[in-house]
């Protein structure tokens, strides 16, 4: 009997949540919705949490606003990526970005920081990354010197393990920061699984415990962007906590826009032909198809050579900035190269 009562109560509670949309649809600093505006503004987006607002000093009310700010930061996202970044801010959730190398995962986080006027803190992951390199470490040599310098007169442990001797690594830095922060956790798939589990804890509580000092809570929740090259699957728990966006190669129009934005003064024709050539390359069977980063590098090289358009010779000379494997460069030769150049020129007009 009691059990059934409890069930009823629970489902009633859920019903309230669904229909009123209040507790479920709370928003961060940036998110005022287009739908259900009255209800939203009436509730005023208060969060009953210990965190004081979100990381941004600037906030965006719509995806378009964020897109414009990213554009000002010299980054041209497609609609999907702007939606992802916008939602990460509005829902206060970490964003997991996956995609082929060179599609601009890391760049997205950097530009978000610029757009928000926030500080970018980057944690580059690698096999064997541990707490001492990701969170904090004690400055042992200073500690030993300090004990000796005190000579007579005792040094207490509290003094020795105080903030003064703490080396702050990216995660602690991001959590303990006074200013708004975008925390970029780059190539999370390279870190060990033990570290991933630890990270999950940090990302759910936004607090770090140092045995000698105590628990440090985030003053402002940093906006978190994780990138992965999918060398392995990440833990479901981590994925459940994050929004997920897959970045593909950009459309040809967007890629031309990106090149023109990143290589100021590049002739329009050259930008179009370079982008079209790279697109042709991606259609081939290569060990490593070039990403946007390679297109930009290459366009810079071509522009520096004072070219107005591409031809087989100049492509041959500069191919090394687009293709990074010897096999790939060898596969693109002579007739193949001429054909690609022709196709690119035809496709860009």
């Amino acid at each position, binding site marked *: 009997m009691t059990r059934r009562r409890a069930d009823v109560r629970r489902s009633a509670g859920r019903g309230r949540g*669904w*229909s009123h*949309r209040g507790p*479920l*649809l*709370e*928003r961060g600093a940036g*998110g005022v*919705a*287009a*739908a*259900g505006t009255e*209800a*939203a503004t009436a509730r005023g987006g208060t969060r009953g949490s210990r965190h004081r607002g979100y990381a941004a000093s600037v906030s965006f009310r*719509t*995806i378009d606003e964020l897109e414009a700010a990213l554009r000002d930061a010299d980054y041209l996202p497609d609609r*999907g990526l702007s*939606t*992802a970044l*916008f*939602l990460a801010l*509005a*829902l206060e*959730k970490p*964003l997991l970005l*996956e995609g*082929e190398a060179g599609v601009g995962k890391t760049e997205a986080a950097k530009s978000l920081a610029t757009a928000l006027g926030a500080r970018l803190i980057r944690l580059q992951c690698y*096999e*064997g*990354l*541990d707490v001492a390199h990701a969170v904090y470490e*004690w400055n*042992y040599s200073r*500690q*030993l010197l*300090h*004990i*000796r310098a*005190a*000579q007579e007169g005792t*040094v207490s442990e509290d003094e*020795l393990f105080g903030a003064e001797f703490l080396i702050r690594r990216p995660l602690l830095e991001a959590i303990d920061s006074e200013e708004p922060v975008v925390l970029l956790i780059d190539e999370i798939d*390279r870190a*060990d699984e*033990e570290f991933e589990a630890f990270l999950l804890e940090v990302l759910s509580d936004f607090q770090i415990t140092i045995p000698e000092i105590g628990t440090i809570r985030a003053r402002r929740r940093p906006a978190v962007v994780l990138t992965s*090259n*999918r*060398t*392995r*699957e990440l833990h*479901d728990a981590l*994925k*459940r906590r*994050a*929004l*997920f*966006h*897959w970045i593909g190669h950009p459309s040809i129009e967007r890629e031309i826009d990106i090149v023109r934005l990143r290589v100021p003064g590049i002739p329009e024709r050259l930008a179009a032909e370079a982008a079209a050539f790279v697109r042709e390359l991606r259609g081939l*069977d290569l*060990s490593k198809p070039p990403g946007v980063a390679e297109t930009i590098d290459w366009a810079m090289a071509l522009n520096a050579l004072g070219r107005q358009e591409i031809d087989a010779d100049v492509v041959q000379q500069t191919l090394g900035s687009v293709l990074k494997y010897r096999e790939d460069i060898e596969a693109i030769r002579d007739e193949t190269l001429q054909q690609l150049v022709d196709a690119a020129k035809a496709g860009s007009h």
Partner: protein
Amino acid sequence: MPERGDAIVRHVVTFGRVLREVGLEVGPGRTIDALRALDAVDLTRQEDVYFSLRQTLVSRHDELDLFDRAFLAWFLRAPVMPPARSSGVTQPAARAVAVPVDRLEEGADEQADGDPIELGASAHELLREKDFAEMTPEEFRRIRRLMQAIARLRPRRSSRRRQADPRGNLIDMRRLVRRSLRTGGEPLERAYRSRKEVPRKLVVLCDVSGSMDAYSRALLLFLHAVVGSGRGVEAFAFGTRLSRLTPDLATRDPETAIDRCTEAVVDWGAGTRIGASLKQFNDVYGRRALTRGAVVVIVSDGWERDDPDLVGREMARLARAAYAVVWVNPLKGNPEYQPLAGGMRAALPFVDRFLPGHNLRSLEELAAVLAGIERRHAA
């Protein structure tokens, strides 16, 4: 307004159910995120609605296709095309639904397996030496335990993580500083730590073409045991093309796992295109750095139907990224065997260890080699 909100909630909840039916894991947490996301964007822009739902409800690249089809069908009421199988790599998501059923059966299986193996030492010895090609299903059942034990001997690497260890070789600075408080800053009393050892990544590529028929069942059993030995193992089968088997082998019951693999591998018992399969592996998984730092084991007789040169080229690519490459060839169990097959000859220069794999004894040898393997070729 509230009616409209209710309608959205209903839509999203039902859509979540649709996604679950096609095999995506959509829990209540994700549904709530989806609702919050829709609340934050402009619902009149279809693109924004699409991305909001996709980014909150999907968390794997290989589920995007399923999601797109469900979205088209549910929100746009569009006719749905049959799933496009663009690449040769099988997509695990659609099959993942069946897992809980097998989990239920595990208990029963374990009890049956828990009985002590009623085999005298001599019978064991005989089975150890017996060629897999001549084993009966009953004998396979009996050697399962041994296979699991062998599979647990994974190659290891030292992690950057450390543990307190009085006989360790790294100084534990944190404890040393604390202890030297008593001695006025003189580090008299030392504290040590040592690096922890963790299993090294292991990638197994198993030839299931016609010429390997007699061995593929035994090798799949072994693969199943290896995948069950812990994280960081990836298993693939190839004949004319590559199939990823890791998700299929991840069930506890070997028979179920093998049935699933049989379903997943479309070109079972067909011809062999080792070069093309290796290329596919290098292109798809090598690019994602699956190979980097891994011990790669290739199980094949080396009969290449196509161009042996391609085998050589792709082996070179593989060997550059891998920590070590081991080739297991069941034919090598025959003392008369010489690696004359074109594919085998092309591959051998890039192989660190070349081993037979025709019986249990040779698998033990493989395990011993894997456990102690060192990087031999230049990086």
